[in-house]
């Protein structure tokens, strides 16, 4: 092995695959790395090319795997620039990224591993520019989007620093405006050990001397795997990215591991079949897409579960993904966006591409069923906090967070017509369900209730018509026992009506109206003791009434049939000219208080019910 002057401090021996580290005195082996997992990258070791016109050489390749979810390694290309310096080049979900080590002391300490919660901001506006790949000033701040631990599993060629096989390294990824991003590497104590700044690279701006295409990302190739449970043949439509498959025949969830399926656990098949067949190809909004996966997710609000369906679509041209969401027959087209493209304008608002999105709701979203292929380790019960922000024109901003990761996406309404056009034969519009069905049934239910209320009121009105059982005028002043020195102060005698007959089964309403000018004087008053007497049984209903300006009513509930007599004993201090008290007794009167009260309460219940159903 040769270590040229000024070359990298470590290499992988191509014969024994040991990491060989050069020290001041000698060379020593730091452990053996595993064989490289084939990634199909065009950037083989020693390949030469240019990035934005700057010549480079591929010095080596490094493969990492996630500690929390092993089995899906990714690769980073170590490139040496002819003009001096080195960078990492990587490719993830349609993006080519180049990063460089920030070599100077930092004016602001990056967050520690414990502090790097998803969404935390790291201000970088005061950090000096350091060349093309190290442009912190492109973004005033960077947002933590993921925190995790990676394991160094394999490599070839040279390494920019000594690495120990299987060494676990904590890291945090951050995203900023203008396609900038950063990675913080941590030491064993979780303190920042190295900071890398990077940005997106347009693949059109990269060339390889071999002439191998770069802009053309690896296309999805249909290969076939066998379900380890039911032996069904499962086409693998995105072999470059798929990490997990849920068998469409038996539901078994399996990990894709180097071209083979490892069964994890059986899952029930989704109770609602996908509206777009898995594997369907179409052109949606100008992009050729392939339907890979189907998920049923739900949340619980006030003890009720509300579900929706999501489809994972692979965009072959960019090796990226978009989602479709269907809830109650309404569709949305969802495109993941970089967290760095957002600017928080208020505690509950984000600005994105000139529009402000206000927080609308937050729910605990859970995956209930999965079917097909997924580029992440999806599982039944996977839960995130989903926050929804509403912008103009029905556009929504979505934030999904776990304790170690935050994802943003923007969703726009998608018409059924667009879906029919994109998937002419594979799309079958689902029936409205869930909240809309509940809202519809709620509206229907209350419509029936309002109809019944109206019918009852009409019947009540019809039953209330008729002549009064009693219509009398009772003198207030003239009914004095004895002439008084002060005529205004009068003590009345009791008034007895003639006996009258009441049919049973209805209410009685006794209206009493004082004379027009009786209570005009400031200290005037009228009271009356009222008794309704059932002459056959001797039962007496007694009330006391104190009059103000308006008429007073006494309601009797469904009195028994028989002969009755009404006794009224007024007491008053009124002018001598006071007109008699008018007393009217009606049978089966419509109780307007109940009529209007019940209508109001019914209306409120309907509004609450409809609102709850659509939440």
């Amino acid at each position, binding site marked *: 092995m040769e270590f040229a002057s000024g070359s990298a401090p470590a290499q992988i021996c191509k014969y024994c695959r040991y990491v060989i580290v050069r020290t001041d005195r000698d060379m020593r082996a730091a452990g053996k790395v595993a064989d490289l997992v084939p990634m199909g990258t065009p950037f083989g070791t020693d390949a030469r090319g240019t990035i934005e016109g700057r010549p480079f050489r591929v010095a080596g390749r490094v493969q990492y795997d996630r500690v929390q979810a092993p089995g899906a390694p990714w690769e980073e290309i170590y490139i040496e620039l002819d003009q001096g310096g080195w960078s990492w080049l990587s490719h993830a979900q349609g993006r080519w990224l180049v990063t460089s080590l920030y070599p100077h002391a930092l004016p602001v300490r990056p967050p520690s591993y414990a502090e790097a919660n998803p969404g935390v901001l790291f201000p970088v506006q005061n950090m000096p520019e350091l060349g093309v790949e190290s442009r912190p000033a492109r973004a005033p701040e960077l947002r933590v989007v993921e925190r995790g631990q990676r394991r160094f599993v394999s490599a070839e060629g040279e390494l920019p620093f000594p690495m120990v096989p299987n060494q676990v390294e904590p890291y945090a990824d951050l995203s900023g405006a203008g396609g900038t991003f950063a990675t913080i590497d941590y030491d064993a104590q979780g303190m920042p050990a190295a900071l890398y700044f990077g940005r997106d690279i347009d693949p059109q701006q990269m060339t390889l001397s071999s002439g191998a295409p770069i802009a053309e990302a690896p296309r999805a190739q249909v290969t076939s795997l066998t379900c380890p449970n039911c032996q069904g043949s499962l086409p693998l439509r995105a072999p470059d990215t798929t990490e997990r498959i849920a068998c469409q025949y038996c539901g078994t969830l399996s990990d894709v591991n180097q071209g083979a399926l490892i069964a994890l656990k059986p899952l029930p098949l989704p109770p609602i079949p996908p509206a777009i067949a898995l594997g369907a190809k179409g052109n949606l909004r100008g992009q050729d897409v392939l339907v890979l996966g189907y998920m049923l997710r739900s949340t619980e609000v006030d003890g*009720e579960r509300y579900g929706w369906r999501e489809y994972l679509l692979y965009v072959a041209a960019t090796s990226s993904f978009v989602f479709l969401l269907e809830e109650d027959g309404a569709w949305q087209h969802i495109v993941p966006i970089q967290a760095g493209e957002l600017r928080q304008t208020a505690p509950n608002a984000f600005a994105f591409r000139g529009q402000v999105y206000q927080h609308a709701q937050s729910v605990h979203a859970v995956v209930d069923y999965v079917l097909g292929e997924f580029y992440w380790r999806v599982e039944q019960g996977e839960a995130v906090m989903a926050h929804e922000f509403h912008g103009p024109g029905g556009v929504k901003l979505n934030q999904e967070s776990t304790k170690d990761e935050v994802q943003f996406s923007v969703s726009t309404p998608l018409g059924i017509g667009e879906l029919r056009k994109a998937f002419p034969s594979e799309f079958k519009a689902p029936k409205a369900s869930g909240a809309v069905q509940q809202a519809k049934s709620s509206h229907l239910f209350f419509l029936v209730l309002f109809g019944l209320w109206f019918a009852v009121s009409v019947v009540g009105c019809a039953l209330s018509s008729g002549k009064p059982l009693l219509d009398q005028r009772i003198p207030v002043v003239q009914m004095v026992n004895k002439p008084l020195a002060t005529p205004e102060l009068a003590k009345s005698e009791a008034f007895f009506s003639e006996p009258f007959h009441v049919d049973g089964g209805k209410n009685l309403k006794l209206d009493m109206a004082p004379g027009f000018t009786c209570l005009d004087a400031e200290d005037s008053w009228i009271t009356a003791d009222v008794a309704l007497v059932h002459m056959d049984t001797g039962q007496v209903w007694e009330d006391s009434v104190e009059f103000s300006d308006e008429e007073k009513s006494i309601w009797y509930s469904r009195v028994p049939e028989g002969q009755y007599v009404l006794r009224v004993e007024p007491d008053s201090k009124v002018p001598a000219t006071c007109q008699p008290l008018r007393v009217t007794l009606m049978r089966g009167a419509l109780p307007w208080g109940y009529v209007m009260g019940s209508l109001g309460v019914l209306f409120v219940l309907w509004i609450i019910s409809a609102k709850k159903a659509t939440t």
Partner: protein
Amino acid sequence: MSYLMRALGGVLLLGYGTVVIGGYDFSTHAKSQIAPNVRQSPGGYRSWSFWHSGSGGGK
């Protein structure tokens, strides 16, 4: 929650129908009873002792 509202709506309508068509009312009255001997005597209900103004009067 939606179902609870519907249930309450149904109960409300039931109560409303009972009140409007059945002739029920929830107002309260003081109730008493005139003894049969008083009731059956001439002028019975007019002379019962609960009347504050005694037995005299009439229209």
